[in-house]
């Protein structure tokens, strides 16, 4: 699992590559939370396009970041998820609270337009 983080104004874009499970969730959490600690970071875009596997540990880890961002008054959006990942997000109730976009540019455009 690799996490690439990019800043765009007050939003953080996190691009996940590889497998998000119990073993790799800590890496994801640390990489994103390090940036979320900064006061200037408000929103989070999760790009899951290169995620090859996810299980319920991923649901917990995404929900954890969602709660962090909420505390700061920001928003989370997800993009690039496969059919399988979308099913997992749905089972975990995340589709009800996090908007999903097909690609990163529309997700970023959306979050920029409302902040």
């Amino acid at each position, binding site marked *: 699992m690799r996490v690439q983080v990019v800043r765009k104004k007050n939003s953080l874009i996190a691009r996940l590559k590889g*497998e998000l*499970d*119990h*073993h790799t*969730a800590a890496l994801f*959490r640390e990489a994103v939370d390090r940036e979320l600690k900064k006061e200037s970071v408000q929103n989070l875009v999760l790009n899951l396009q290169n995620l090859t*596997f*996810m*299980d*319920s*540990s991923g*649901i*917990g*880890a995404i*929900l*954890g970041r969602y709660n962090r961002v909420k505390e700061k008054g920001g928003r989370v959006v997800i993009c690039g998820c496969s*059919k*399988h990942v979308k099913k*997992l997000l749905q*089972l*975990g109730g995340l589709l009800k609270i996090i908007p999903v976009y097909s690609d990163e540019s529309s997700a970023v455009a959306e979050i920029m337009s409302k902040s």
Partner: protein
Amino acid sequence: MLMNYMVLEIPARSENESFARVTVAAFAARLDPTLEELNELKTAVSEAVTNCILHAYHSDGEGVVRIRAVVEDKKMVVEIHDEGKGIEDIARAREPLYTDKPELERSGMGFTIMENFMDEVSVHSSPGRGTVIKMSKLFSGTVNKNSH
């Protein structure tokens, strides 16, 4: 296809989660599964194996996880076994969103995912002795019965 089986024994370490699910998925390849079915199997196995590592034993690497998978025709039965602390209240453990480790950002969706992605899931557990998760899945693929 004649009955065939595999057995895998690994230390209960989180780095082995990926190896375990990929190995079971590779064994299922002979049933000619769709990509979706393979993803479902992998995810269900990942849930059960992760639970052994995270919940059954006190610390990472303490115990052993045993996996046995049997295939016959288009069906796979997979058993995931630990000798850890066991589950006191199985019905509660299987409830969606139930977790005894919310502080570790657990979602409590492991059993729900196993139930959604497999055809049957049964749980046998004795507190203090361990747990066996038995799951089965029928694959839609057209297995050529004359091959091997």
